[in-house]
């Protein structure tokens, strides 16, 4: 059964339509990269799936469309794009917040909770600064702590909005590895991202969103073609293979004139 099933989702923000009938199924074991240009509707799709913005269409989590807020919290964890931490709480306490959906209002952390918290901290390599105030961390450290918080929630599905933004290359790769591991454990991760190289190398599946519609959905090699990068992202990219995986590096911006010329050249070739 799919962990998340969205069909015919339409969302308008402030009267402006953002998503025009998006359909998507996420199954256990998948690590889905949600890609697309700025304003394509990636964040809105994630937020709508969680019920944070209202939309028309069907959204089923774990096969159910009528989950309470608490029930949903046990099935879906969410990592928002904003990384604002209001108070200087310790990193460990920050991560323990992820266990909130599991306890009752007054229960203390149990052995299972503490294990989940420790595991999440080890995975994101932040155990060394567990006692430091979370507000004093660097941007990248804060990002890792927040990923650990979402992992500690222990939900079958993790929706992450640009989780690797602001991380150094080694921690970008480490984070993608963690998400891939989480997916291989029988859970699923959906991460919106802009780094196509990381997405191509680590995700099991890519969903390309443009102007509120899914334009491509499938294996990274099938989705990321030179043609799509040109028409949707407006970039010329180098596509290659190295060290057993796909390499993709955007090189130049396609100017409007050049694109038109190219179209013309293609037409001529076609004829």
């Amino acid at each position, binding site marked *: 059964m799919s962990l998340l099933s969205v069909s015919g989702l339409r969302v308008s923000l402030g009267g402006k339509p953002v998503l025009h009938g998006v359909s998507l199924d996420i199954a256990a074991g998948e690590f889905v990269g949600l890609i697309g240009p700025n304003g394509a509707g990636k964040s809105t799709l994630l937020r709508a799936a969680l019920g944070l913005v209202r939309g028309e269409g069907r959204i089923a989590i774990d096969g159910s469309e009528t989950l309470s807020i608490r029930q949903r919290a046990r099935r879906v964890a969410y990592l928002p794009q904003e990384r604002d931490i209001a108070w200087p709480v*310790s990193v460990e306490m920050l991560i323990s917040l992820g266990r909130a959906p599991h306890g009752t209002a007054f229960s203390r952390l149990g052995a299972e909770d503490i294990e989940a918290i420790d595991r999440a901290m080890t995975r994101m390599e932040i155990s060394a600064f567990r006692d430091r105030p979370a507000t004093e961390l660097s941007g990248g450290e804060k990002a890792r702590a927040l990923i650990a918080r979402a992992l500690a929630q222990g939900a079958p599905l993790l929706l992450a909005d640009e989780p690797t933004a602001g991380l150094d290359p080694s921690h970008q790769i480490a984070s993608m590895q963690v998400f891939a591991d989480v997916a291989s454990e029988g859970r699923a991760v959906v991460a919106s991202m802009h780094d196509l190289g990381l997405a191509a190398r680590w995700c099991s599946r890519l969903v390309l969103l443009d102007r509120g519609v899914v334009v491509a959905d499938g294996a990274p090699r099938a989705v990321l073609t030179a043609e799509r990068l040109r028409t949707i992202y407006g970039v010329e990219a180098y596509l290659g293979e190295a060290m057993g995986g796909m390499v993709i590096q955007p090189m130049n911006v396609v100017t409007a004139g050049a694109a038109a010329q190219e179209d013309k050249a293609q037409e001529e070739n076609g004829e």
Partner: protein
Amino acid sequence: MSEGARYRLVLILLALATFILFLLSLTVGPAAIGFGDSLSALFSDKRDAIALIMREIRLPRAILGLMIGVTLGLSGAVLQGWLRNPLAEPGLLGVSASASLGAVIAIYSGFSAMFALGLPLAALAGAVLAVFVVQAMAGLRGGALTIILSGVAVSAFAGAMTSLALNLSPNPFAALEIMFWMLGSLTDRSMTHVWLAAPFMLAGWAMLASLGRSLDALTLGGDAAVSMGVDIRRVQFLAVFGTAASVGAATAVAGAVGFVGLVVPHVLRPLVGARPSRLLPASALGGASMLLAADILVRIIAPGRDLKLGVLTAIVGAPFFLWLVYRTRRQLP
């Protein structure tokens, strides 16, 4: 020392301080009664002057000091956690200003002179009106910002109406009474005031105290909190109505007492590891300690002059707050 152990120590010390200050509040006053005499009179069957002073004057004053302190500390901590803003304070929702307006209208119209509870009841009515206006403005879809802005507007309007009452006051004595009442005081309150305020305050505390876990989750922002199972509408309802009930009742019996709800959560936040749920009980006890201490000080500093409680908390609180801001300015965004 672990965070948990330090938290328990802070709570124990604050509870101890509150208890000692409560006893001091019972034993300090213009009628020079010994410490032992005054406490034993409280529990004796005798009906002499000392027992009368203790039961009818000092006991209600100490109880009100305790309850109003808890109210201001707790609601300040809840509002700061809910709005994720260290500048939030209990008067933010317009409740204090409207309760003051209700009291002023009662004094102005002579309603307060008709029976003993006329003034606090009118003040409570003002608070209730304010919270319904604010909540109606925010509606079901409105968020925290709508509530803050509505609160600012309601406060401004209530302040203007209070000024109008002063402006049009037919005799200087009514104006003076209004001015003095607005300064905030616990002098000459009776057990009737306690019984009037207690139900509202207890109901308000119950609402506010239930928010600890939700406020913890809100540390990460509204969206993250919802994804962790927090019902934002419920949090908003409980924060607004809990504050309105308890702060409205506090203002109704004592007038506006500023700075306690703003300063106390600030001072205690670093001591409880900044965790909002832990700040609630600490701030409630801290508020009680601060208010009881201030109410004892007004009796010691100027015994014959009736120094007002709200004046003292502002005189001490404002420079102290400035010092806090100076000390923590580097951590502020």
